[in-house]
């Protein structure tokens, strides 16, 4: 039986992880490669790197990080943030990432998904979605709207429609982030996650709001998610991946327990 995946997410700026991250029983580490290795050994099923570097030479720095991470771990990882075109995708994949995550660029140019799937295969193409709950309207019948710029810019695109459209275009997976839940550590957006997961046949990674192992249990059962993204709850040492997986296993969720 397919295990539910637990996926730590690392934000990287100028080649360093952004937050002064403190592992449980450990010192602060800002090196994404050391963190990747740590999470690989701690039982992460996959990793997500999100590049938030703003400067123009950002790509070269991130590509070097990707290359070093690829040499340090033997599990899949994806890279998102600033992927604008096929060349950006190619650079990241050739440096050793399994998948690229496209978000804003795909909203602005949906053909990027189709072109990426054609050139590199659907399994490489993750659609990143930033979603905000809004009033139900004619334009947004699901009541969930696509947003960019951390939720400041509304796109006028229905999230449910966009998820199905991206699957049709060739996306192999969806990483679904609730802007409302993001950073709250109060639990995932279960209604949104379930709605999207049931509407597509490709896997859905739930993102935003994880604070306790019970939150993961909820999103992997009620929310119908195939995987759960986690950040602060492990970065700051509140939980280890082992503790999270033990909890989920005890509650009957299939997770990978031996690594």
């Amino acid at each position, binding site marked *: 039986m*397919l295990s539910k995946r637990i996926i730590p997410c690392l934000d990287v700026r100028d080649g360093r992880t952004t937050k002064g991250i403190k592992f449980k029983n450990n010192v602060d580490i800002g090196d994404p490669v050391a963190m990747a290795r740590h999470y690989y050994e701690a039982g992460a099923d996959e990793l997500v790197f999100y590049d938030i570097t703003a400067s123009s030479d950002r790509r070269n720095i991130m590509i070097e990080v990707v290359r070093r991470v690829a040499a340090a771990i*033997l599990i899949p990882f994806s890279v998102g943030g600033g992927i604008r075109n096929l060349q950006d995708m190619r650079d990241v994949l050739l440096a050793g990432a399994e998948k690229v995550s496209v978000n804003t660029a795909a909203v602005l140019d949906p053909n990027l998904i189709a072109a990426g799937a054609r050139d590199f295969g659907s399994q490489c193409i993750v659609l990143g979605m930033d979603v905000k709950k809004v009033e139900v309207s004619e334009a947004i019948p699901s009541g969930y709207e696509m947003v960019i710029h951390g939720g400041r810019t509304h796109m006028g695109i229905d999230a449910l429609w966009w998820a199905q459209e991206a699957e049709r275009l060739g996306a192999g997976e969806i990483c679904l982030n609730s802007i409302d839940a993001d950073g709250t550590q109060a639990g995932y957006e279960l209604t949104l996650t379930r709605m999207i997961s049931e509407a597509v046949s490709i896997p859905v990674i739930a993102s935003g709001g994880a604070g306790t192992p019970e939150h993961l249990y909820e999103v992997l059962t009620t929310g119908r998610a195939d995987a759960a993204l986690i950040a602060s709850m492990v970065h700051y040492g509140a939980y280890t991946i082992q503790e999270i997986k033990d909890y989920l296993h005890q509650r009957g969720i299939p997770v990978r327990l031996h690594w």
Partner: protein
Amino acid sequence: MVVIIDYRAGNLTSVVRSLNALGVAGEVTQDPAVVARAERIVFPGVGAAGKAMAILQELRLDQALKAAFDAGVPILGICLGAQVILEYSDENDNTRCLGLLPGRTRALPREPGLKIPHMGWNQVRFLRDHPLFQGLPESAEYYFVHSYYPSPAREDMVLGVTEHGITFPSVMGWRNLVATQFHPEKSGRFGLQLLKNFLAWDGSYAK
């Protein structure tokens, strides 16, 4: 010399790095002459069967692989490489494949609530002993990402099976050929152990 066949079907970086981690350099090639000299062959790949077969034929790697198989060179197929070794694939309208083993590649059946592609970590139930499985516990999981699965015509060619909606062959083996639907190069230390076993294997198994 361990040769990794490059037929422009996805990224070979992780395969090369895994072999490096085991102290093996590995030569990535598109050249059938290099394949002809190989002592051992890794045949990876992701993507669609139709395009893969067209490129294998264009580069004349199809003949080189058949010759290597006939000559007894140990071969490891991975993912798409575990599919195109069969005779046909349902992908891309009944694609004619290499035919190293009898059988065909089929689509994973779609059913409500079942996610396709089958993506993530899953177990393999070993049905037969094989040197490839040395030191691997039954509880180990391996990383899969695929929408089609290999279905060899003969049951005794199936070494291991995995469940996702249906129970499908996830490891095949016959003579000097072994093949995994999952990615050992992305499957942590158990995947690495399997690669290590392949590198140590003399290529003899079954008839």
